[in-house]
C-alpha cells in the first residue's frame, strides 16, 4: 500500500496571521510557519495503514523553500520520503492552479492512495480533494472520520453535522480526513534523527512539464482584491439583573441564534 500524503505549510493558526499588502497573498516571512494541523491527522492515518499493511508513505508538498520544515515534521513522524515542488513562479497561485501542479507531481509517482487534511487552516477552502479527483479521474472520499482499507477498496465514514455517510470506492482514491479520526503521534527521538537521512526530491515546474505562465498570481482564477483586519473586540452586552437576568440571558442567546 503506497500512500501519498499532501502536506501544506501554513502560518500557525494559533498566532496572528497577516496578508502581504504588496500583493494580497499570505505574508509568510513574518509568520510562524508550521505544518497544516489537519494534515497531521492524514499523516497519522497513512502511517497507521502502512504499519498494518506495509508499503511506503510519501509526503508531497507544493511551497517555498521554507516548506522543508513541514516536510521534516512529516518525515520525523514516520513518513518514508518526500517530494517538494518548489518554484518561484508558483507564488500566489489559486487552488485550481495548485491542483494542476499537485496532479502533475502525482502523475510522476506511484500510489494506491492519496490522503490529505480535510482543509488547510489558512484558506479553509477544502476543495483540493475534489479538484484532484477531477483532474486525475479518481474517486474522492472527503471529510473522513474513519478509514478502512480492505483489499482494493477504501471505506470511510464521512463526517456530517448529524452523523456520517458510509462511503466506499475502489483504489486508487483520494481521502481527506478530519481531526476526529485519530490522535497524531509526536515525533520520537529516533524519528527526528532518521528524518534527516530520508530522501527529499525537489521538483520545479519544468520537471513537471508545466508552463510557468499557467500558474502564479497573474493568471490565478481567484484573487484577493482587498482585505481588512478583524475589527477590535467590542464592549459586549451587559445585562443588569433585576430579577429577570436569566430570561434576558436566554433572550440574548436566542437572539444570536445560539439556542
Amino acid at each position, binding site marked *: 500500500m503506497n500512500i501519498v500524503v499532501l502536506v501544506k505549510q501554513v502560518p500557525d493558526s494559533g498566532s496572528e496571521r497577516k496578508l502581504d499588502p504588496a500583493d494580497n497573498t499570505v505574508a509568510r516571512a513574518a509568520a510562524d510557519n508550521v505544518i497544516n494541523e489537519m494534515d497531521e491527522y492524514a499523516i497519522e492515518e497513512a502511517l497507521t495503514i502502512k504499519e498494518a499493511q506495509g508499503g511506503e508513505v510519501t509526503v508531497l508538498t507544493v511551497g517555498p523553500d521554507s516548506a522543508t520544515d513541514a516536510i*521534516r515534521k512529516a518525515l*520525523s513522524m514516520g513518513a518514508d520520503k518526500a517530494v517538494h515542488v518548489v518554484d518561484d513562479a508558483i507564488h500566489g497561485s489559486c487552488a485550481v492552479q495548485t491542483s494542476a501542479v499537485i496532479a502533475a507531481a502525482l502523475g510522476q509517482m506511484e500510489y494506491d492512495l492519496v490522503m490529505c487534511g480535510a482543509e488547510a487552516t489558512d484558506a479553509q477552502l477544502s476543495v483540493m480533494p475534489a479538484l484532484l479527483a477531477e483532474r486525475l479521474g479518481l474517486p474522492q472520499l472527503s471529510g473522513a472520520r474513519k478509514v478502512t482499507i480492505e483489499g482494493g477498496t477504501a471505506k470511510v465514514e464521512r463526517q456530517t453535522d448529524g452523523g456520517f455517510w458510509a462511503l466506499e470506492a475502489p483504489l486508487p482514491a483520494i481521502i481527506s480526513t478530519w481531526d476526529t479520526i485519530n490522535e497524531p503521534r*509526536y*515525533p*520520537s*527521538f*529516533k*524519528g*527526528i*534523527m532518521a528524518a*534527516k537521512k530520508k530522501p527529499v526530491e525537489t521538483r520545479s515546474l519544468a520537471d513537471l512539464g508545466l508552463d510557468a505562465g499557467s500558474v502564479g498570481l497573474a493568471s490565478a482564477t481567484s484573487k484577493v482584491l482587498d482585505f481588512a483586519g478583524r475589527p477590535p473586540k467590542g464592549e459586549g452586552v451587559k445585562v443588569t439583573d433585576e430579577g429577570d437576568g436569566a430570561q434576558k440571558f436566554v433572550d440574548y442567546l436566542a437572539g444570536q441564534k445560539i439556542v
Partner: protein
Amino acid sequence: MAETDLDDLRAGVRELASSFPAEYWRRCDAAREYPEEFVRALTDAGWLSVLIPEQYGGGGLGLAEASVIMEEINSTGASTSACHAQMYTMGALLRHGSDAQKRSYLPEIAAGKLRLQAFAITEPDAGSDTTRITTFARRTPEGYVVNGRKMWISRVQHSDLMLLLARTTPRDQVARRTEGLSLFLVDLRAAGSAVRAEPINTMVNHETNAVFIDDLVLPADALVGVEGQGFRHVLSGMNAERILLASESIGDARWFLDTASAYARDRVVFGKPIGDNQGVSFPLARAWADMQAASLVRDRAAELFDRGETRGTDANVAKLLASEAAWAAANAAMTTLGGYGMAAEYDVERKFRESRLYLVAPVSNNLILDHIAGHVLGLGRG
C-alpha cells in the same frame, strides 16, 4: 551536532513535553504522584536513552545534546526529576561494566523495558563525604553479602535496577580513603525484602527514600568494574549528572522568566503594566543574564565531557551557576506575581519548590565553592 540539529531536538522534545499541561503537573504535585504517563511518553519516544550508544539500541548522542533535551523539557514547566536518572545512571555501567553486563542490560534499558534510575551512595552518616560510607559488601565464595543503610535514594520504587556503592575493604585498611569502595548492580526485582525502601516526605513531589539493606546476596557478576575502585567509577557519572541537572535548572529559569514576563506585561496596576516598573523588571533581567552565563558554562562543560576531558570543576561550576540562576529567576517570579505567586494554580510556587532543591542537590553549592577554593585557588578546604 550542528546547531540546526540541536534545534530539531529542542522542537521535538518540546512538542511532546508541552502535551502535558500545567494541570497535569499540578495534579501529580498535589497527590504526590509519580508522573507515570509523562515518563512513559518520554521513554517510548526514546528521549531518555539518547546517551546509550546506538550499538545497544540507544540514541548515540553526547551530553551536549542530552543537556538541551533536559533544559527544553523543564522550560515547558515540566519536571524531569522523576526520570532524569534513567538517562545518566547507566553511564557507570557503560564506562566500567563488562561486555556481558552491557550486552544484557543496556539494550533493555534503551528499549525502556528496564528502569535503572536509582543510585545508592549517600548514607545517614555519610552525605557528600562519600568515603565514609559504611554499607559493606562481604565477599563470599558465590559473590557478596551486603548490609547497610542508604539515605536520599531517589526513584527506588520506580526502578528495576539500582547501582549501589559499598565498602569491600574497611576505610582503616586501605592506603587511600577513596579505595576499598566497590560498585554493584542490584536487581531490585530479585532482591525481595533484603532491600527495603522507606519513602521520605519532602516539600517537592519527588520519590526519595531511606533504603535498608539486610543480608542482600549478590552474585559475583553484580560487581561493576574493578573491586575496590568503585569511587573512581562513580565520579564521571557524577559529572554527567551535574551537567544535566544544571540544564534542568536553566530550563526552570527559562520557565520562570517566560511566566513572570508574560504576567508583568499583562498585569496593569496604577494604570500601567507592572513590568514597566524597574523594581519588577530588573530582577527578571538580572536573572536572565545569570541564566545566559550559566548556559554558556554548561555548554562548555558538556563539550569537554563529550571529548572525554571533563574536570569536576567544569561540571560543578555549571551546576552552581545554573541552580543559582534558576533560584534568582524563581524569586523574581514570586515577587512579580505577588500573591498569585503563592497560588497553586499559577504554578510558580510549585516550580519555586522544585528549583530550590538544586541549590543543595545532588551536591550542596557550598561544597562546590569548597571544591573551587581547594582545587582551583589552592586554599585550605573546610
